[in-house]
């Protein structure tokens, strides 16, 4: 098993993300925003995003920066701050290929991927236009009962899982906190790229209290430090929040990006797009 590579920063880390990669990201608890910004700065193109199971600024920013070709999602929204305008614009304009799903279907597809099995059955969905627009979903007969249709979801095997964690060690072990879903993500994905607020010299797996919430290093391809790497989202740590959400920033983003010109201005201001790229 090759060692987890320690990278200089998120910009160094995203060199591991080729154009066209299928990238999975979890909805909260350490959203890897610095990785999103690094992907935008590197002008990575044609990403196929899998949101687990939904997303907010992570997906909207990458869509607005022109990095995303396709998305599989149960929903993209900025929550209490309002709609994700780059997402809705791109779907309406037909420039973003969308595979609509429902939250537990994305978890179940990843769980099939994590177990190395071809599909997972799931209740619900029958009779919805979600199912009617997913030719890759199938309705099968429960083999153990009479006349019991059930939906079969194909395994989701992303190329890369990205995540931001409060704490990691130099061996590549990641402390996930409450976000146990991140294990499913990492298990189902071929590779995991992570940033961490802090990377310590010891070994997190030596600590019985921290170890159960750790993703062991053999899942982690590369790791980079990223202080405030979840900003403008909050980052929970082992002893409470390391920092809270930047509500002013999120509110301003949600308001101004209703106008596509303002989205370009935002990307330039944040150093995510070269000024000369804007008309």
């Amino acid at each position, binding site marked *: 098993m090759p060692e987890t590579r320690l990278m200089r920063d998120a910009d160094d880390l995203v060199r591991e993300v080729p154009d066209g990669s299928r990238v999975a990201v979890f909805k909260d608890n350490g959203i890897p925003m610095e990785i999103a910004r690094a992907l935008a700065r590197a002008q990575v193109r044609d990403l196929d995003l899998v949101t687990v*199971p*939904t997303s907010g600024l992570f997906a909207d920013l990458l869509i607005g920066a022109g990095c995303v070709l396709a998305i599989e999602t149960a*929903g993209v929204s900025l929550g209490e701050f309002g*709609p994700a305008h780059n997402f*809705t614009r791109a779907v309406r304009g037909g420039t973003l290929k969308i595979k609509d799903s429902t939250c537990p279907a994305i978890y179940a597809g990843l769980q099939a991927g994590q177990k190395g099995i071809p599909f997972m059955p799931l209740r619900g969905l029958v009779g*919805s*236009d979600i199912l009617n627009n997913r030719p890759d979903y199938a309705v099968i007969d429960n083999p153990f009962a009479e006349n019991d249709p059930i939906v079969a979801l194909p395994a989701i095997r992303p190329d890369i899982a990205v995540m931001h964690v409060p704490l990691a060690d130099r061996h590549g072990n990641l402390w996930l906190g409450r976000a146990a879903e991140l294990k499913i993500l990492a298990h189902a994905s071929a590779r995991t790229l992570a940033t961490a607020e802090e990377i310590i010299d010891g070994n997190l797996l030596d600590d019985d209290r921290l170890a159960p919430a750790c993703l062991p290093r053999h899942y982690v391809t590369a790791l980079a430090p990223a202080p405030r790497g979840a900003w403008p989202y909050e980052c929970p740590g082992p002893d409470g929040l390391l920092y809270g959400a930047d509500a002013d920033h999120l509110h301003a983003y949600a308001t101004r990006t209703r106008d596509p010109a303002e989205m370009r201005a935002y990307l330039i201001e944040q150093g995510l797009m070269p000024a000369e790229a804007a008309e």
Partner: protein
Amino acid sequence: MSEVPPLSEADPVCLDEAGPEEIMIAAIARLLDGVDHIAVGVLSPIPGSAALLARRRSGARVSIIGSTHPDFRTDGGVDLFDSAGQGRIGAFFLSGGQIDGSANINLTGLGDYPDMDVRWSGAFGSAYLYFLVPRVILFRAEHSRRVFVPKVDFISAPGTSPANVHRPGGPYALVTNLCVMRFDRDRGRFGLESLHPGVSLEEVRDKTGFDFDIPDIVNESPPPDAQTLALIRGPVARDIAGPYPQFAASVLGYRQTDLSEAEA
């Protein structure tokens, strides 16, 4: 919760003091009678408050997505859906950009899929939870023909299913700023249950784009009595202020200083 005496129907009514949100909260809470575990999704301060009111009355367990309070936080997304699959969640709340007379809900958008004229955020967990949670209460604070349409443009989650589809759950009632309707699953139709104080049947008919059953005698939704209002504005407001601080302050008049008066 033992210090809270049971709700008495004989308690004095203070109609002119209850706001429209408080009438909705009280109406939803009545529909939660007898439910052991109530789950509350995102962007749901009114149902969340109703669930917390039901908890104050009956001791129901309440899980609120997005809450960081140890009494209300969920054990993560996977666990919430698995709990519903195990039959452990008795009630949940859904809304819709469009809702039709068959209780189909549309959270996806308007126009032809996929590049729709209007695109909303997406189905979230609805296409699963609508099938599995026994009492799904639909809520919408805007009762209009824009929302309540003859047929939704996109079925994010269907209101009814053929008999052979495993469906222990489904629509139970619809609560709006004007009225309460109950859903008859066998007939696949809504029926008017009660009109909120001051609302006429004509107004509800005018603002509903689908046909619904009307009983011979239409009741008025009982407005929250003094004791219920005190619960809503006191402990319920305090508890909902965690995930929804703005709602607690602006709608329920919750002040941060109330925290010091909170009971243990």
